């Protein structure tokens, strides 16, 4: 919808200037953080007191941080894989045809997005204490799948809605089984949205702090 005409408009120029200033301020802490990592002394000051790489080497000397990073990585990969498989299957079911209660089921499946992270965390804490589940990895996996699944579903479903169902029907008409037509016709078209879903699920899981903090002792995942 961009016509290009707007770029000569003084208001757009003003908005662009504001955008650059605000985004500079908003991203400045990230620059500062990265630069303070090169300090020669043990102070986190900017500009640094001299330069060194020893803090990067020091990461390797803190096994609990390396371990936490590994744990977060595995958790993010496994939970994303589960969420995306569930997302594909559910999105196919939700977009194949209209059926009674479809919108209701849709709202039901998206409901974790409406609930603030602290409440998600507390709910799972209370639930696992009640059930007596003492499996830190499995508990966190359940939480992270609940948190990431709605993102996977939303992205994949919207790509399926935009797709032309006639293509798949044509494949079936030409003699392909419906499973075969799914993998030959629908799946390739889904690929960009799958990539977006993987990106979202991975980042949301790896980055999750608030809900995760309720279920782990400090230091178990990297952000916590």
């Amino acid at each position, binding site marked *: 919808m961009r*016509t290009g005409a707007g770029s000569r408009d003084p208001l757009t120029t003003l908005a662009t200037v504001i955008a650059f200033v605000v985004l500079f301020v908003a991203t400045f802490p*990230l620059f500062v953080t990265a630069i303070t990592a090169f300090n020669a002394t043990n102070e986190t000051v900017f500009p640094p007191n001299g330069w060194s790489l020893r803090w990067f080497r020091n990461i390797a000397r803190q096994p609990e941080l390396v371990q936490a990073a590994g744990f977060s990585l595995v958790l993010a990969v496994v939970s994303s894989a589960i969420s995306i498989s569930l997302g594909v299957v559910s999105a196919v079911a939700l977009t194949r045809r209209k059926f009674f209660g479809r919108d209701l089921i849709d709202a039901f499946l998206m409901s974790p997005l409406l609930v603030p992270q602290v409440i998600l965390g507390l709910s799972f804490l209370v639930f696992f204490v009640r059930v007596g589940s003492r499996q830190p990895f499995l508990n966190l996996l359940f939480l992270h799948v609940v948190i990431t699944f709605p993102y996977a579903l939303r992205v994949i479903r919207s790509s399926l809605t935009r797709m032309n169902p006639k293509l798949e029907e044509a494949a079936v008409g030409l003699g392909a089984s419906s499973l075969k037509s799914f993998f030959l016709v629908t799946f390739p078209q889904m690929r960009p949205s799958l990539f977006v879903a993987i990106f979202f699920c991975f980042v949301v899981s790896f980055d999750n702090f608030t809900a995760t903090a309720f279920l782990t002792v400090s230091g178990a995942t990297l952000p916590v």
Partner: protein
Amino acid sequence: MKSRLGLLLLLLPALGLIAGFLTALTSVLVMSVVDSSGALSLESYRSFLGDERYMTILLRSVWIAFYVTVICLVLGYPIAIAMSRSSRTVASLITLALAIQFFSIYVVKMYGWMLILGNNGVVNRMLVGSGLVSSPVKLMYNELGVAIGLTAAALPLMVFPINAVLQTISLRYEEAALSLGAGRLRALLTITLPLSVPGILSGVILTFVFCFAAYLTPGLLGGGFFKMIGNVIYEQAVARFNYSLAAASAAITLVISLFAVVAVNKASQAFAGGRR
């Protein structure tokens, strides 16, 4: 695959997952209204609502979420305008910068702000170094620090939905108004702004709920000196094992969040109705 039963079978795993989550959520809500013996009791609500400290924290959480939402809207709207209207290169540069900020690890973002706002941080070193102040100004471990951190963390939540709506609004409407003699600002305020209200409202909901129930930002930039309701829930549950008080705080937080969602949706319906 075509049959109803097939569809249901496909949906079953996801339905089970979310049902598990809702069971957990319900168990918290139930916990808030029963006492230790399991009998119906509003004791935890009484101890929350009757305690001045908790009420102060609750009201301040609503207030800070409210004004941070307003600040995000004021800063975010021009960004969304710039994203949807400047030249392709500039627009994608802005989008990329905002996306990188948004997808950075939340803890890292807040850590960065601590390096900026701390007593030995960038701002204070500049102020003291230039001789403007003799001793560092307190910029964090107080409300100011928390408000700055929340604004930075929530800004993309405001910009993205507004941008999504602005992308669908044709500039031709504004051009028509311009050709009829309206000024640029007037055209923006009377044509584009009303059309972008749905985006503004979803940005407002996301920002408000995110800020109101924040835990990490007040935890780091408030440093225990400025607490919000999220910190109360966490402390009661994880440090004090006082699940019933945590559950009551969580229920109150959930009700206020959902109330905000419903109120904003009603406002948007009233707005749509008023324009018809």
